[in-house]
């Protein structure tokens, strides 16, 4: 089964001009959601048991109530929140996926109660 992009003949279109083809694996979302944690300083591990029987590919974004409401793609360099250089961050080593869980370690800014919300998309594609 194939679906072509508008303007392309589905019978002759190249793969890059298809919207969908049953001949190719489709990267569909198995699970998407958010998780939130409020604390003052320190770190916290978000644990999402994904329920899949393999290690899936995932994308993670986050925002913080103190620094920005914009969604930041994780991992990222720290978001500096105060003159002491305290940071809210989720580094590259802090996003870990295995056949059971997605673990995301968030570091909170010191000195102020802060809420970090992560948004994740877990795909039906094995790493």
């Amino acid at each position, binding site marked *: 089964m194939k679906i072509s992009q508008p303007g392309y003949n589905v019978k002759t279109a190249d793969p890059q001009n298809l919207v969908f083809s049953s001949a190719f694996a489709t990267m569909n979302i198995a699970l*998407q*959601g*958010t*998780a939130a944690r409020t604390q003052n300083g320190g770190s916290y591990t*978000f644990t*999402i*048991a994904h*329920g899949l029987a393999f290690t899936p590919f995932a994308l993670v974004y986050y925002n913080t109530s103190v620094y920005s409401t914009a969604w930041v793609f994780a991992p990222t360099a720290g978001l500096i929140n105060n003159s002491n250089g305290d940071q809210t961050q989720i580094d590259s080593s802090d996003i870990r996926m295995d056949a059971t869980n997605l673990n995301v370690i968030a570091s909170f800014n010191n000195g102020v109660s802060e809420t970090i919300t992560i948004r994740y998309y877990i795909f039906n594609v094995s790493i």
Partner: protein
Amino acid sequence: MIIFYDKQTRDVIGVFEGRVHSDDQLKAWVGDRDHTNRIVIQWKPVMVVVYINGRSFDASWTEWQEWLAKEEQKPIASQRAYKILNIIYEPEYHDKELANKLDQNPTLAYSYKVNPETLALEPKDGIQ
């Protein structure tokens, strides 16, 4: 939608988005299972709009399933062709209005605490 909450603080700590959850999604969890619990809000079909013999009809989902079952008992050549034009879903939750709001804006769930006995979502800090 599946809403996870901390058993002790009753705060919402995580949300799985979506209306109909698969078995794999129902196996998934946010946080430590010993310290968290969840509310599962599945959406179920309640009405269907179908096109049969040149006319469109509204029917409840139950009536539709009964009609299908009778048609399928007939010889294939006698079965009527149909086309489903639309299926209306509703959340299986006591507060349907809130469930609809959460479906549109899932992060709204974090403005609520959970009553663990009734599994009702109660606004926290006077937020409405």
